[in-house]
């Protein structure tokens, strides 16, 4: 982001960047930057909090009024906790993700477990999309059940190509969006970090992704090993 600031500024466009990793901004010295103490992925801090987002944006815009630079300032507030809707204001502990009854499926095939998970989450994902006005799901153009079949087929295939694995990356992103949108729409949802752990560690699709990572890391082609190693499971969850 800092490099873009340098290049735009040298072309006559004034820039002000949000900085998420202060240590990077310190060495890159973009013309103007506002460091914010928010999680990676959230430059405005928190969802559905227009006042807070506006404060961050106004602090960033105020850097355009400085007479000289480079400018690196710190935003003084931490982001408040997530609020999705009125129900979230209720006091109490977060509830586990509701998945229907999975007991009878413990001996089922991975494919059957995935399809059961997808079916159980379907109404919640639809609710999430209605609340948001649209869904972030749909990158690959395939339905969730077809995405699940793609992953199962790849994990079991005797030979695979780099293009198979590039398609898998979008399929994984899409399925994660589907699962986490659905889970976040349920009553008393888990906070984001726990939701991520749930997806990767407590679902059939998460188990399949760990298998896929092992399969891909043993692949003969370096690009496949790279996708498997770095793009299926977040570093912090390895």
């Amino acid at each position, binding site marked *: 982001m800092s490099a873009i600031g340098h290049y735009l500024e*040298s*072309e006559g466009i004034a820039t002000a960047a*949000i900085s998420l990793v202060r240590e990077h901004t310190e060495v890159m010295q973009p013309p103007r930057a506002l460091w914010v103490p928010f999680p990676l992925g959230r430059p405005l801090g928190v969802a*559905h909090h227009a006042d807070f987002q506006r404060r961050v*944006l106004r602090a960033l815009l105020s850097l355009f009024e400085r007479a000289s630079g480079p400018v690196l300032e710190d935003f003084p507030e931490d982001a408040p906790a997530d609020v999705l809707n009125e129900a979230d204001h209720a006091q109490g502990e977060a509830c586990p993700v509701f998945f229907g009854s999975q007991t009878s499926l413990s001996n089922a095939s991975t494919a059957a477990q995935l399809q059961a998970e997808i079916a159980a989450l379907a109404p919640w994902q639809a609710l999430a999309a209605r609340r948001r006005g649209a869904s972030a799901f749909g990158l690959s153009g395939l339905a969730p059940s077809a995405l699940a079949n793609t992953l199962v087929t790849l994990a079991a295939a005797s030979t695979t190509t780099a293009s198979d694995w*590039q398609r898998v990356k979008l399929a994984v992103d899409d399925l994660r969006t589907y699962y986490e949108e659905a889970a976040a729409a349920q009553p008393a949802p888990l906070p984001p970090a726990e939701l991520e752990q749930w997806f990767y560690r407590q679902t059939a699709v998460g188990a399949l992704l760990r298998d896929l990572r092992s399969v891909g890391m043993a692949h003969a082609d370096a690009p496949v090993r790279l996708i498997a190693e770095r793009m299926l499971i977040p570093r912090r969850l390895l």
Partner: protein
Amino acid sequence: MARLSELTEHERDHLLSMRDQAPRLEPKAFVRPGPLSEARVAIISTAGLHQADDPAFAPGEGATGYRVIPGDVNPATLMMSHISVNFDRSGFRRDSEVVFPLARLRELAQAGHIGSVADFHYSFMGAPFPPTRFESKAREIAGLLRCDRVDAAVLMPV
């Protein structure tokens, strides 16, 4: 959480290694855009954002491709196809303003805090390494921003 001290050791080491390897770009240009209340403002994101009928970002497209986001887009319909799995996406899934604050910018324009909002905004899928790989496309976008009479750009990483 973007405080390094609050990240896992693995994540912290990765980010510090990126810092140590990054090229140093000497501060040179510093453009004064005039009064903020008259400034026309665009958003440049590196979140891998696009509309549903745009092609998703491909691996390796970090610095070589960008998507145009029209100023009249419904922000709720934006998609994210960033290659990294190492940042929070739950905020974006709930409310795209947390990544791409177009509605907030429109409100600030209506309130007279800024002059106007650009007709076009742009998203890369960051972060390429080294970041100097952005140069060609960043200069290309600068030309488009000038044609859109943009004075100031806010840069939004993830």
